[in-house]
């Protein structure tokens, strides 16, 4: 944390443009995440949310604009490099190691982050640093009780938590949560929200989500994208009260 300049935003996106042929999927997006912020990105289908996330993680290259991480320009960095620098995402479609235990899933990520993955002797179970790190993560995500279970024995809600734990194991500074509530039952939603609220306070979190109840209860700030462009950015109350947002997004949902 010492290398952070306290005045620098965690993530700063300025003047970002991306076209797929004639389709303008990102138009002059400016977005700033302060360290520790809980920010939500919402918008109707096709608003360009996923494209924006893909540009932040480096899967897509923007046509113009810059992305800075604590002041460092990462616009041209590879996805792997960005992960190493602390830009980590979770996936809408959960992708885990099903026949391994929950602890092994997390241990794999920690081993990879510490470059232990080629070590052909010893065991992670005898590595106190790894075991303690796994325990701390599982504790934070309420998964300690299922540490010995194989992931395929878990319900969808708990798998979502393992997915988040895997991302946290990579020590993110900016965490992108892609639809964390997707597929989670309404019964588990309260649990998910409670755990999201316990994420480390120094991490800037950007959540892309369709579930408005989760967004309104989790986020401090909300950015609304429509047709690739930024429609509104503001606090939860400002966005809720905004008539344009009601028209294009919330109003329409209410009739569904």
């Amino acid at each position, binding site marked *: 944390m010492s290398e952070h300049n306290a005045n620098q935003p965690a993530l700063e996106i300025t003047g970002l443009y991306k076209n797929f042929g004639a389709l303008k999927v990102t138009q002059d997006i400016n977005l700033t995440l302060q360290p520790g912020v809980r920010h939500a990105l919402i918008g109707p289908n096709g608003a360009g949310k996923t494209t924006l996330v893909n540009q932040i993680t480096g899967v897509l290259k923007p046509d113009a604009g810059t992305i800075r991480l604590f002041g460092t320009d990462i616009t041209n960095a590879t996805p*792997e490099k960005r*992960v*190493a620098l602390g830009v980590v995402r979770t996936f809408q479609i959960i*992708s*885990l*190691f*099903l*026949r*391994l*235990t*929950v*602890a*092994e899933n997390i*241990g*794999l*990520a920690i*081993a*990879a*982050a510490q470059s*232990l*993955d*080629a*070590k*052909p*002797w*010893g*065991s*992670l*179970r*005898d590595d106190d640093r790894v*075991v303690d790190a*796994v*325990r701390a993560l*599982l504790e934070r995500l309420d998964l*300690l*009780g299922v*540490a*010995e*279970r194989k992931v395929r*024995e*878990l319900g969808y809600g708990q798998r979502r938590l393992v997915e988040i734990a*895997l991302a946290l194991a*990579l020590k993110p500074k900016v965490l992108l949560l892609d639809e964390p509530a997707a597929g989670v039952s309404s019964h588990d939603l309260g649990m998910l929200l409670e755990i999201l609220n316990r994420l480390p306070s120094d991490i800037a979190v950007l959540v892309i989500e369709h579930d408005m109840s989760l967004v309104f209860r989790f986020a401090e700030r909300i950015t609304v994208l429509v047709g690739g462009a930024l429609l509104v950015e503001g606090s939860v109350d400002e966005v809720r009260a905004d008539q344009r947002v009601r028209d294009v997004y919330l109003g329409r949902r209410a009739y569904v």
Partner: protein
Amino acid sequence: MATLSTARAVAPSIRNAFAAHRINAIDVGIWMVAIGAYFVVPTYLSLGTTVLIMILFTLSLDLAVGYGGIDTLGQGAFYGVGGYAAAFWALNVTSEPISGLVAGALVAALLGIVTGPIILRTRGLTLIMITLAITSMLEEFAVTAKSITGGDDGLTGYHIDPIFGMFHFDIYFRTAYFYALAVLAVAFVVARIVVNSPFGLTIRGIRENPVRMRLLGVPIRNRLIGLFTLSGAMAGVAGALTAQVTGLIGVDTLTFLVSGNALISLILGGFGRLYGAFLGAALFYIFSDRAAAINPFHWYLGLGVLLILAVRFMPNGLIGLGEQFQLFRERKQGRGLDRGAS
């Protein structure tokens, strides 16, 4: 009391959640049977030696297929190449046996390093076809390159020195049996260390979800090549052992049959648990031997029936059968309730 015991149970559960091979009752049983066989059935040590070597070979296949998810049908290539290398070594360099094993391991490992980058680019059916093709090419080479391989006759007429200058190979396979047993024990220890290691866990992760593994920043192709090479070296040692204890290595070691038999052994025994190789290969080769003794003409029928029964009634092999039984007992005693529920 209850809270105390849960608190205590939680503390070590992280360690226990990492799968690990530990010395247990199965080990004691396996090695006692292996040593006991020497005294109980001294007239069958030739078969016993074959079984031990094939366990080693099947163990090497389990590393690739069971742990790494590399569905190869070309493991016989390593076996044959290792055997030829050991025979060539004995004929042209030295008759000392240990160095011959090392030669077999190194040449097989070299084959792994060279073919691995090509083979491991693919998965599934494509991978199976490529591994089959490479084995066939090597077989053709062995038939054609008479000056190196002896062609259809294979390599023979070489002598193997006593092990450490002390233990002479005898016609009753007494020395050969313990030689193979010792090499198998060393290989098993190596395999166990590797599968317990962070590398071993990474390999299982790649088997489960290669895409996600890459996203964690792991160079998965390199890890797979490492595993493939280790597995190949182990198969090469098995081939070298065969060449040394039988005094003959032929083209038949490079046929698909060798790879197929090991795969069947692994199906019988169970994948990804190391012990599956022991139980499966022992069952396969002892059963084949007995079936052939009873009916030399139709013994393959017996093997076929065995395989059908095995696939029908123990899809996870003999070792899986044991685990099912254990789970059943735990559930009956009410201990494994929550584990069984899902």
